[in-house]
């Protein structure tokens, strides 16, 4: 079954944006390209009928991206001279390797639609210790980052 035009367009946007992350000359352009890759992935989720996941994806990554944008704008450093000689053969090799892996696995099941929201309720009730651990991980990361930045502020102020 061939994919329809909308999926091809979304895929082209996402893959093109992914390439632009590494091929653009300025850091800010890379960040903007990554934004388009996130938007493309959210469109894929909407296309698959998982609008709730698309919404969450945008919430999580738009928050993160705004931070990245601040860093990219704040940094005046230019990207290093990029070598296509290294990038293109590596890309070809990785695509070949991963495609072979997918072909060898031979996993092509039929469609089994499942509701994300309905399963989330049972996931939260069943896996709440995991959610607690994830929250703890995020909290400890924030505390660690604050401590690192505090050292920097001591140097500056």
């Amino acid at each position, binding site marked *: *079954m061939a*994919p*329809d035009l909308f*999926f091809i367009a979304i*895929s082209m946007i*996402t*893959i093109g944006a*992914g*390439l632009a*992350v*590494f091929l653009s000359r300025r850091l800010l352009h*890379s960040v903007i390209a*990554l934004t388009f*890759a*996130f938007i493309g*992935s959210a469109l*894929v*989720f909407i296309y*698959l009928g*998982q609008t709730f*996941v698309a919404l969450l994806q945008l919430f*999580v*990554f738009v*928050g*993160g991206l705004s*931070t*990245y944008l601040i*860093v990219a704008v704040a*940094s005046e*450093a230019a*990207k*290093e001279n990029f*070598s296509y000689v*290294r990038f293109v053969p*590596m*890309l070809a090799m*990785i695509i070949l390797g*991963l*495609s072979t892996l*997918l072909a060898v696995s031979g*996993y*092509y*099941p039929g*469609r*089994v639609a*499942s509701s*994300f929201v309905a*399963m*989330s309720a049972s*996931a939260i009730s069943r*896996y709440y210790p*995991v959610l607690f651990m*994830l929250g703890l*991980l*995020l909290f400890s*990361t*924030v505390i*660690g*980052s604050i401590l690192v930045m505090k050292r*920097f502020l001591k140097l500056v102020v």
Partner: protein
Amino acid sequence: MIILPYLLGLCIALIAIALAGIAAHRNLIVIMLGIELIFVASTIALVSFFSYGTSPGPGGIMMLFSIWTVAAAEIITVIALYVFMRSRGIGFDVSKLSRLKW
């Protein structure tokens, strides 16, 4: 409607681009952007399995939450690393970080 191999092909393309970009670049921020791209590809793969193929079930939802949490934690970490490297005057070139020492 599309089928799973096309979606997995999209994920493969994104992961390949990200891995090649990470290997080819030395800029810390660009490397972190590549890792974010891998997170996006893995999320697409997981949600594809929700829509097509065997459903991952509630455990898959937790995997999705884990991916989002690690992605958010990575963003926090890269900001701290950025500030630290700037304060030490190291710049963004990771090839200069040759020693794992505080």
